[in-house]
């Protein structure tokens, strides 16, 4: 035993420095997560494999980043959030509070968001927005469709995984939620194919963290754009992201911090509702085929 017993503790550098260091630590842990690494690899591969310039339907390719970066990213952050649960008797009495730890975890979502950004750039490289595969949408709306399908789910999925990890004990919760969301999006997309002009069906289709806006079903030459505003849909998605962060932060929050989070959550829910209504009522009033 050669160590000294002299107190070595410096002045505690609380606050931002600790939060930044913790966020960096969690980010490193997330980056080496096998599920996330697999998600990044498979996303890159699907974009590369779907590079055929003659593609007439962007949906087949644009949904993969959402599935892998968003869905698998959700499972990876869920695992990351739960990973210290066994050590909670020790971690729970550390000066860094649970909401601060949650905030550090939320910072991790920058990584899948950046991957989503790269995936979007790759997608645009192989499928320029000027192409016919985007249907009758304007240039800006085409960008909005892709950002809402590729980038925002890459952010939202991991944030949802953190919220889930903070509140749900069941270890398979993230996988279950992934299946539920996948099933829901599939169901409402099928309904939309059957009832392309239906306003209620459009509402159901957009009531999800991911939505398709075009289809070529039944006719490979023409692209049909569905009802709904892609820009407001991004707003709805981002509001859902904010809600996920606030719900995650609420766990363990006390006193004034808790009140602030609850107030912000109420605002977020109102905002989400407004943006959802705008997304459902905006855009084309009916399905348009180009």
């Amino acid at each position, binding site marked *: 035993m050669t160590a000294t017993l002299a107190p070595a503790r410096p002045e505690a550098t609380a606050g931002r420095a600790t939060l930044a260091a913790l966020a960096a630590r969690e980010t490193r842990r997330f980056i080496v997560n096998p599920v996330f690494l697999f998600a990044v690899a498979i996303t890159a591969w699907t974009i590369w494999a779907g590079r055929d310039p003659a593609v007439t339907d962007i949906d087949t390719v644009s949904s993969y980043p959402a599935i892998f970066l968003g869905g698998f990213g959700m499972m990876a952050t869920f695992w990351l959030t739960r990973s210290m649960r066994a*050590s909670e008797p020790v971690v729970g009495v550390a000066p*860094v509070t649970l909401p601060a730890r949650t905030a550090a975890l939320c910072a991790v979502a920058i990584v899948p968001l950046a991957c989503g950004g790269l995936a979007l750039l790759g997608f645009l490289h192989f499928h320029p927005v000027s192409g016919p595969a985007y249907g009758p949408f304007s240039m800006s709306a085409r960008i909005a469709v892709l950002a809402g399908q590729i980038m925002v789910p890459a952010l939202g999925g991991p944030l949802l995984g953190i919220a889930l990890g903070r509140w749900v004990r069941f270890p398979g919760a993230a996988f279950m939620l992934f299946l539920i969301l996948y099933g829901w999006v599939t169901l409402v997309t099928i309904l939309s194919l059957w009832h392309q002009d239906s306003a209620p069906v459009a509402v159901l289709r957009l009531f999800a963290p991911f939505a398709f806006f075009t289809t070529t079903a039944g006719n490979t030459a023409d692209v049909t754009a569905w009802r709904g505003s892609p820009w407001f849909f991004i707003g709805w998605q981002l509001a859902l992201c904010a809600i996920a962060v606030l719900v995650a932060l609420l766990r363990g929050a006390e*006193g004034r911090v808790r009140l602030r989070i609850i107030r912000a959550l109420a605002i977020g829910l109102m905002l989400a509702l407004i943006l959802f209504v705008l997304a459902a009522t905006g855009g084309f009033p009916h399905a348009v085929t180009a």
Partner: protein
Amino acid sequence: MVTASIGLREAGRTFGATTALAGVDLDLGPGVTGLLGPNGAGKTTLLRLLATALPPTQGQVRVLGLDPEVPAERTGIRRQLGYLPQEIGFPRGFTAFAFVDYIALLKEWAEPAARHAEVRRVLDLVGLSDLGAKRIRAMSGGQRRRVALAQALLGSPTVLILDEPTTGVDPEQRVTLRIVLAEIARTSVVVLSTHQTEDVAALCERVIVLDRGRVRYDGAVTDLTGRAAGRVWLADEPDPAASVSWRTGTGRYRNVGARVRDGVEHVEPSLEDAYLLLRGGAAEHEPAGEVAS
């Protein structure tokens, strides 16, 4: 300089209909205090109250003059606290160094060089300096216990709460741990719960015996041991008059009891004898003493 102190006033904790701790009054200062008691006596609950892991359902707890029920004050306590819980799990894939380093980060050691030096220091204290790179899952039970202990020693805390720190730890390491704790206890409040009476005898100036959530004894270790003087004897057969008897390595029986017959062969009592005597109810026959009601 503020003297490290802990105060409990009528502190209690219930879990549903079960009372784990009932109206405990205690004042603890620098030094090592041992907590003894049977399973379910309330030792872990008391330590969790002191470690701010659990709020009391009645009474008051003050640690270093701060109220753990006030969030800002609780954080203030936690900045000066080291806590080793009875049971702790470790995250998958972590090495000993990475785990202690992670906890150091949660204890606000943001500066990497100082943090790493501190992690190395505490791993060295528990004799794990060579095993820092080893995955915790691949370690033995005793080594894991030492990893858990290392995180509690981070920053030489002013209040150190240890719940069965020597479980699974080999004798050599237990001696090392005693040296470490004795040094820390010069300025810090160290409270440890254990079933190993020899650890309490070797390390603690003060012992608290809990039973069914109440303080049964609170006083000096030597005083408790002294209470068993003349009540421990050896015999060739188990003595029916004894509260407890067991066969020793010599083949003779060690008897502990309040009712001692004449002419028996008395031996020097240990803390364990005194504890067993207390548990056996013999102390209730005492005319006066430190046995709490």
